[in-house]
């Protein structure tokens, strides 16, 4: 099978899911990105990305935790799958590998 790559937004969101652990659902991820990365992103975009990650097998989800605030509706909580953590690590490794090979003064300040 062809190797699947993930995009920058997907990477950020997947990391956020990992960071939030048990609390990773649409609203929390959106707010997390807004506060941590100072990046405005609409909840619908986050949803679309989360579902795409799930489709690609990097995340899994389950429905639970209805609250009154949501009008009794449940949340869909995501967690990172093994494939997901593998690809995150891979990205991290490739990046540091590249960084290590960077000659000093290669980047203009």
């Amino acid at each position, binding site marked *: 099978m062809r190797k699947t790559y993930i995009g920058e937004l997907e990477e950020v969101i997947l990391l956020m899911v990992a960071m939030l652990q048990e609390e990773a659902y649409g*609203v929390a991820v*959106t707010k997390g990105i807004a506060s941590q990365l100072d990046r405005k992103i*609409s909840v*619908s975009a986050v*949803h*679309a990305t989360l579902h795409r990650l799930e489709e690609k097998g990097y995340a899994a989800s389950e429905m639970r935790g*209805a609250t009154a605030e949501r*009008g009794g*509706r*449940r949340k869909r909580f995501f967690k990172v799958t093994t494939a997901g953590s593998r690809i995150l690590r891979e990205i991290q490794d490739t990046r540091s590998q590249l960084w290590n090979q960077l000659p000093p003064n290669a980047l203009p300040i």
Partner: protein
Amino acid sequence: MTATPQPPQWINKLLKSVCKECLLEEIEGDLMEFYSDWLDKYGSAKADLLYCYHAIKFLRPYALKSIFKVSIFRTMMIKTHLKIAYRQLVKNKSFSFLNIGGLALAMLVVTMISIWIWDELSFNHYHEDVVHVARVMQNQTFEGGDIQTWRAQAIQLAPALRETYGSNFDHVATASFQQESTLFYKEEALKKTGIFIEPSGPELLSLEMVKGQRSGLSSLESVFISESTSKVLFGYEDPINEIFRIDGRPPVKVTGVFKDFPSNSAYGDLDFIATFELFKQDLPEWLNWGNSWFQTLVQLAPNKTIEEVSLAIRDVKLLNVSDETGSRFEPQLFLHPMAKWHLYNQFENGINTGGRVQYVIMFGTIGIFVLILACINFMNLSTARSEKRAKEIGIRKAIGSERAQLISQFYTETLLISSSALVISLVASYLLFPFFNQLTGKELSLPWNNSVFWLLTLGFTLFTTLIAGSYPALYLSSFKSIGSLHRFSQGQSTISARRLLVIIQFTVSIALVIGTVFVFLQINHVKDRPLGYDIDNLMILPLNGEDLQARFEVFRNDLLQTGVVEEVARSSSSITRTGVTNSGLSWTGKDPNMQDEFITVVVTHEFGKSIGWELVAGRDFSKEHQTDQQGFIINEAAAEYLGFDDPVGRKVKWDVHGDYTILGVVKNMVTQSPYDPAKQTIFLMNYKGASKANIAHLKLSSQRPIQETLTAVEEVFKRHDQSNPFEYYFVDDLHSKKFKAEERVGKLAGFFALLATLISCLGLYGMVSFVTQQRTKEIGIRKVLGASVTSVWGLLSKEFVGLMLVSCLVASCLAYYYIESWLAQFQYHIHQSLWVFIAVTLSGLIIGMLTVSYHTITASMVNPVKSLRAE
């Protein structure tokens, strides 16, 4: 529990109806959480808005139900559909040609008509506040209860309106009518059209200033010129403060340049605007309320309407005018709004009876009819074609096509046809516009960069596609495959519906053709009307210079000596345009209550000889009789008006001018509208009024070439008048100009009638081809049993001849009714004659039969073996 605000329900419903059910819960839940945040932060209004915004952003492919997704399979099929549609077009070449051609023709007609109508309807709408601008008009009742509507007013009206009714108006301005003047700048002399108006004029006309301010027309010597005039006079120099002269008036200084008015406005030809004060200097002191010589324009205050102000000012003139200056005519004032000047310019008995708007309605109707015809044909031909494809549908279904695929297949085919028609019609109209402009005398073009135009054309194309494509797409695709494989012919009901359509088409085109023929007959009839004078080689020369008028005899002798001029005479008005009327005459036998009115023309001795009028009694003016100075020559209409059986030698008393003797009677001449009967006219030599005999009529020799004559006349003119440009008109040109409007209508109607006939022939052709194809087998069997080609041809054509006869009958009745009402507006008009109806009907039948016979003859000549074997 307090009711917390809820997000709008409709958006939830929308989400519910289009989103996947499994996702709905989390989407709504997350949105609700954000909603409560937004409520705290921004309040309910903005929260609602944000909620909707984010909810709509959820309508992405991943969240939508599968039916809203375009399946990749279907997108691939579009390519196949296009390919098959193209093959169908190429396979049935004549059918495609008819269908695309017919539709393109109709689109062409409709595009042109709509652009023309748009231009007419937007006349004068350049004005920022067109609903509040109006001209003051007056209705006056003359003898016999004849109410006349004038657009001219007295000079005293504007001040009276300002003083007493000031709160109704933003601006009131007296102005001259638009008139040609000569502008003198340095060595140059130019003829330009201008208006003299009071200082509030520029505001009132909503001038768009290129240089200077609208308020710049305040001092006597200020003048505004149009951008184009500025280019002509001053080139690229700054025109401000340049000085020139208008006719013989004191010099004026340019204080502003205005952008040329759009050609579809009442001021389209306006080149300069000068002050009314300047104009007033040449006017006599004694002008009173009885002298309606000017126009009065008003702009209402924003909170007033035309109707209420009309009512308020009704009696302003009546209250001011004295008995002898016209209160007996019971003048009533009213306002004629600027938006109606162009299309509603006719008044009858004081009531607005429309005018040009009738042509707008007429062409609009034609346009709609042509459109309907073309749509009908298009539908007819497409459905006739698709009936033949019932088998194809059956096989497709048997192989496993979905109904949705068949529907999109048919729509694609129809769309291909209608969009090619659109492209063709756009190209054709682009090419035809110069010709069309020549016909209409307008400067129109396709509004390429107008989004409304594109929306309309594309909308129309889609609409036709939908209408014409729906029958095959929805109806045929619904067949069970086994049924459509069996099907051969169809029921009678659709055939009779098509018959009706053919009748309607033919009726419309025959009616249009009959109408056009009558328009041309009427024009020719009026053109052939005896003029009463000799129009050939008659030239008119306006004498603008004062000294030229004074030294006329010398000028005349010089002209005669050139040998190219046979006779020269002066008169106060051109023979093609008499307008000055006078009253106050009394004679024995005059009804004391009669308010007499005569057209008066001041002439010199040789006038009759120059124009070649025909005396029916008495004699012409003669230099041998000194007393002829107090003589009248009258026309036959005047003799009748006076009530004299033997008018020659009778005396007529004219209040201030003394006694006159009638010397002779001439035949009635066409001196005004050629459609109206001749009015009572008096020709005289001695006159103390304001009119000057400043127009020379020259009878040219027919022996010399025209160029030589012109050079000779110009040379003499230049010798006597160095200041004014040489300006001349030929009377036959002036006369034929009077037919321009009607000729234009005739040509346009003819153009559209031709197109409509073409379209309906296409329809007929399609219908016949359809019917003969359906009857191929029948014809084969008949021929096997011994039928001849002629009898088969007769059998097939019979039905169509009947249909055409019916439509000719209906068309004749319709045309008769409309033409009668059109002719009624002309006093001098033809009567509808039967032979036109017969001729048009016959030629319609012949054209129809030719169309029909092409198919029926081919069908009846086919070898029966072939037609019976084909399956």
